C-alpha cells in the first residue's frame, strides 16, 4: 500500500532532494507537493483543484513559505478535528529556538532542522522514513478525510 506524504516546501532544490531521497529509501512513498501554505490547506481540505487529494499519512512542513507560512498551516491543521491526527513534522532551515518552541507549542509532532549538506539531508530523510513510516503506528484513514472513498 502506498504511503502518502505531503511535502509543503517552496524551494525547488529542497523539493528535489527530498523526492530523490524518498525514491532511494522507500519506493512505496507517494510524495505530494504543495508549494505554499494556501495550497497545502486546499490540498488537505480537498478544495478546488485538489478534490481527489489523498489524505496524507505524514506531513513534512517547512516554516517559511509564501502566501501562508508554515506556522499558520500548523495552527490550522492542529485546530481542525479532522486533520489534527495527521502527524506533522516541521522540516525547516530555521534553527531559531523561538521557532522550535512555537512549533511544539502549536503541537507539531516533531521538529527537524534541514542540514546544509546533501549527504546529511539524505540521511535525515532516511531517518524520517525509518522512524515515522516503519517504526511508528500511524492512524488509519477510515472515516476521516474529506469524503472521497
Amino acid at each position, binding site marked *: 500500500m502506498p504511503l502518502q506524504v505531503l511535502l509543503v516546501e517552496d524551494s525547488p532544490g529542497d523539493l528535489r532532494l527530498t523526492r530523490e531521497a524518498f525514491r532511494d529509501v522507500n519506493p512505496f512513498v507517494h510524495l505530494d507537493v504543495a508549494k505554499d501554505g494556501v495550497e497545502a490547506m486546499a490540498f488537505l481540505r480537498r478544495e478546488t483543484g485538489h478534490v481527489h487529494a489523498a489524505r496524507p499519512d505524514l506531513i513534512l512542513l517547512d516554516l517559511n513559505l509564501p502566501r501562508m507560512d508554515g506556522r499558520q498551516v500548523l495552527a490550522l491543521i*492542529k485546530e481542525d*478535528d479532522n486533520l*489534527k*491526527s*495527521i*502527524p506533522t513534522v516541521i522540516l525547516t532551515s530555521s*534553527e531559531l*529556538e523561538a521557532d*522550535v*518552541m512555537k512549533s*511544539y*507549542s502549536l*503541537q507539531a*509532532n*516533531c*521538529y*527537524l*532542522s534541514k542540514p546544509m549538506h546533501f549527504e546529511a539531508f539524505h540521511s*535525515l530523510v532516511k*531517518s524520517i522514513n*525509518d*522512524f*515515522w513510516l516503519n*517504526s*511508528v*503506528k*500511524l*492512524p*488509519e484513514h477510515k472515516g476521516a478525510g474529506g469524503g472521497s472513498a
Partner: protein
Amino acid sequence: MPIEVLLVEDNAGDVRLTQEAFRDANPSVHLHVASDGVEAMAFLRREGVHGQAPRPDLVLLDLNLPRMDGREVLAQIKEDNGLKTIPTVILTTSDAEADIAKSYQLQANCYLTKPVQLSAFESLVKSVNDFWLTKARLPQKP
C-alpha cells in the same frame, strides 16, 4: 549534558528492559520512572516528593496504568501550557486502532507499540534514541 527521559510504566519487566536498552544506546540518558499516572503528573508538576524533579526532554508513556491511565496523563500534559511542548511518545502493548486514533487526537507526538521479542524491544528503544534524541530538535527548557 544529561538528557532527561521520563518513563511512565507500571510493568517492572518493561522498566528494566527500557533502562538496559537506553544504557546501551545512549549513556547520557537519565531515565526517571513513574509507575502510574498520578505519580507521572506529580513528577511533571514537581509536587510533593518530586519538588526537585527535572523537566523531561521526552516522555515515554504507557496507556494502561494504575490510578490514572495514560490517556488521561496525555490529555493533561497537552492541555497544560507549561507541559504541552514536551514531546510525549506513547509506548504501549495496545495496537487497538481506537487507542492509536485517540492518542493522535489528544496530540501524542507519536505512537509506538512494544514488541514482544527482546531484540525488537531493544531495537525500538535504539530507534527512539536515534530519532528523538539525536535527529529531532527538542525545545529548550524554559
